[in-house]
């Protein structure tokens, strides 16, 4: 469960203090499917980064699964990211010199898991994304849709509770985009909390809970549950 209360995030831009997030309070239940929409610069990516512990709030508190994570050190936050959070990016962010399987393996490698334990997990993640036959290909030998599937395999190989997707279809054609969304939704149905930032209203509407951000504030949560 994600609990944000009175979160602020401000940046110093020249003389001006810009509030990317302005008093955001939000509770996201485990297993939720949430979309975050809003114009550019409204703070949706900042919110996602905060939830993913890539950024620290200027004020407010953030509890993840009951634990206050704002007070954690860089080292502890890295561990939380490694175990509990998966990221899917618009730009895929695969390491070009590594094969698909090696890219998927990275989070396990960083967790210090021995190679013989990693192999079955990597194979399973790739199989789930139907990328087994491409496991030895490098990213530049894969299509956009395939790259994003490798990236998703990498995000879920540690079996995190939360999957954060920042415009996951932004760099894909409609067909591959739809396929990626369907994969993410399948993962969500199996229990993972899916939080997705998107520009595309059609994609946004598929989520059970839709958040809209304007000027760093949540404006009206048009969700189906509450």
């Amino acid at each position: 469960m994600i609990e944000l209360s009175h979160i602020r995030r401000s940046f110093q831009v020249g003389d001006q203090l810009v509030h990317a997030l302005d008093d955001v309070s939000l509770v996201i239940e485990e297993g939720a499917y949430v979309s975050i929409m809003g114009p550019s610069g409204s703070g949706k990516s900042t919110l996602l980064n905060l939830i993913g512990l890539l950024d620290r709030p200027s004020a407010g508190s953030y509890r993840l699964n009951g634990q206050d994570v704002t007070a954690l050190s860089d080292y502890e936050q890295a561990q939380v990211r490694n175990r509990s959070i998966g990221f899917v990016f618009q730009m895929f962010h695969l390491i070009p010199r590594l094969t698909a399987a090696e890219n998927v393996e990275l989070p396990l490698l960083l967790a210090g898991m021995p190679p013989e334990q990693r192999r079955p997990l990597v194979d399973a993640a790739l199989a789930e994304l139907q990328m087994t036959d491409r496991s030895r290909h490098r990213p530049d030998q894969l299509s956009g849709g395939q790259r994003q599937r490798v990236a998703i395999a990498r995000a879920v190989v540690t079996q995190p509770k939360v999957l954060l997707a920042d415009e996951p279809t932004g760099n894909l054609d409609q067909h591959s985009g739809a396929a990626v969304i369907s994969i993410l939704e399948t993962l969500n149905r199996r229990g993972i909390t899916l939080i997705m930032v998107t520009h595309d209203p059609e994609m946004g509407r598929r989520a059970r809970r839709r958040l809209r951000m304007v000027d760093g504030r949540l404006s009206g949560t048009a969700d189906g549950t509450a």
Partner: protein
Amino acid sequence: MALHSGDLRRFAWRALRGFPARTLLMLTAMAIGVSAVVLLTALGEGARRYVTGEFASLGTNLLIVFPGRSETAGINPSTMMGETPRDLTLDDAQALLRSHSVRRIAPINVGSADVSRQRRSREVVILGSNQDLLDIRHWEIDQGRFLPSADLTSASPVAVIGDKIRAELFGAERALGEWIRIGDRRFRVIGILGTEGRSIGVDVQETVIIPVASAQQLFNTASLFRILVEAKSRDAIEPAKKFIIDLLQQRHQGERDVTVITQDAVLQTFDRILTALTYAVGGIAAISLAVAGILIMNVMLVAVTQRTAEIGLLKALGATPRQILTLILAEALMLSAIGASAGMALGQLGSYLIRVVFPQLPAQAPGWSLLTALAVAILTGLLFSLLPARRAARLDPVLALTGR
């Protein structure tokens, strides 16, 4: 969360292979630095071994006696009275044999004179000595025999000549038993020195050796240039030295007017000087290692900038700052180690080539220099990568991922 060493190695290795241009650049810099250290210390060590070898070839357990005191004395009674050091004489030399510590002696007289046969003539260094010189200096006779073992004062007209002199005066003709003219006297050639036996100051091949008494007549002098003394053993060197000084003081009316140097002392002095020299050139070469280090720092900084997105990603995937630091340092370590090894091989190859081209110069880098070069190279590599690595570890993942 500690990375497995195998994973670390593999990741660093692939990162290096991912950017071949910069990897090669850094390897080259490192290799040049290390090979410079290896090569220069090899040269220094070669020079040291060459010089000490030359001194060792002077003879073993050798003492050299020469007139005059080498200590710089300001004013003492002898200067006040306007005395000059007494000459060393043949009797002095003969007296030295009375010591139990002395095995043999060779008085030396040196001068230069024209040596001629028929119409061929040249100026040659003439060495006056006795039969023991051969053994003291470890020379070898090629044909005939060395000076006869006669009384030191007998001035027999015989000469032993170097091989080059033989070739110049006699060409292909037989030289043994023939007469040559040295200055205004005639000498019979009784022996020819072997081609081996070059040592400091004297090129055996271009020397003519005659009995010391003959040399004294030839140069019209009663004094000696040096007396070479061979002690019976290494332990006998010091007693022999003391004996010589005391005896000659007694013979010279109480004046200590000779200097005795032992070969060991000379050897040690040269050894010290040349070892210091080797350290110095090694140190100078180490500067190139520092330059390599600075290059590594620059290239690593560029590498970190180039890979900002990758580092951001690793952070998002849960890499701790320490892990990022470790990854970058592992790359640097690998680079330095490979570069240093390449440089080491290059330096050793260079030393080998020097040994092949100049066989008399035993250029071989000493063990300490190899170890130091390796250690300094790796240390510089790590040290200069610390700054880029820390910068990478501190990267803000959000900025890194969005490429801002």
